[in-house]
């Protein structure tokens, strides 16, 4: 196919996590826009990044509109602030009905806030913990809530 009709993905937050995701999505052939408040953060993007970069506060609905959230099929909220990610994810999911929304949450507690909407939480610390338990083979006691 000469033209692959591509999915449009918005990544909010160009930290190490956000830019890594943006890079690999762009290389995989998706249309990607990265939004970050600080222009300097875009230096985290690799030189192979083929998408757009937008400077602005992704928690501001107008910034999201300018970035084209209305035609986005996926949004990944991965700033370094859980609450901001939660807000952005909710705006994307509940106001713009973006089909797939991902939110990076450092604190597992915040996961409950986004339950019930089509937001998928990504908890890096939990994942790292799981990885540790798996690789160390140490048996563990579950913390009872």
């Amino acid at each position, binding site marked *: 196919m000469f033209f692959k009709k591509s999915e449009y993905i918005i990544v909010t937050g160009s930290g190490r996590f956000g830019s890594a995701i943006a890079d690999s999505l762009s290389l995989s052939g998706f249309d990607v826009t990265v939004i970050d408040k600080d222009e300097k953060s875009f230096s985290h993007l690799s030189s192979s990044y083929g998408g757009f970069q937008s400077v602005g506060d992704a928690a501001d609905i107008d910034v999201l509109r300018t970035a084209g959230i209305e035609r986005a099929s996926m949004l990944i909220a991965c700033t370094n602030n859980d609450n901001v990610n939660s807000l952005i994810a909710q705006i994307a999911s*509940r106001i713009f009905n973006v089909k797939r929304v991902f939110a990076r949450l450092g604190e597992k*507690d915040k996961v409950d806030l986004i339950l019930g909407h089509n937001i998928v939480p990504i908890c890096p610390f939990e994942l790292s913990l799981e990885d540790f338990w798996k690789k160390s083979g140490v048996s563990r006691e579950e913390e009872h809530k």
Partner: protein
Amino acid sequence: MKIVIAGGATESEFLAEMLIRKGHTTVLINEDKNFCDLMASKFKELMVIIGDPRNLSVLFEAEIERFDIMISLCSEDADNLSICQMGKKMLGIEKNLCSVTNPKNVQIFAKLGVDHVVSSAYLIAEMLKNAAVLENMIQALPIEEGKIVLGEIIVSQESPAANKYVKEIKEIPEDSIISCVIRDSGIIIPKGNTMILPGDKLIMLSSSKAAEASELALSGRK
């Protein structure tokens, strides 16, 4: 009632004082040690918790489960949203209220489950909108997030409404009503056969859309 105030500074102090005076159980959660010390010494009925209200564990420690109202006044809008939502979902606090700095978030947060969202910029904007549009409305007060406007119109000799019965004034738009007429410092609640005289001050209750039209209809001025 049992009310918790999270974050903020001067505003929180003001609110806390008001609530305590009214006899409500008030809990203040704040990160700033100096502020907490000050508040604790000023108001002995106030329960002051030092900690970051953005942390769910701090909220749990504050033992505010099933309180009546959560007021979140942190400087970051996103934090306020999270605190209000945590209050509702995990602590059973049914009603919440927060302040926002970005006026665009007033309507967004309302959609996301915050009962009352306050933005000073938003309020001022609404006031300016109505004030700019309506010269004769000396005081225009936006209610219900600007959807309803309460305003004053002064009727002069040349106004279309002058010397007419209320029921005769066809130009009053649909979403508008003369709620009361002030004449010579007396108050008249108008009926269909009340005559509007020059010099009357009309208190109009209209939707924000109809406000301009009603002013035009009654005072003749834009």
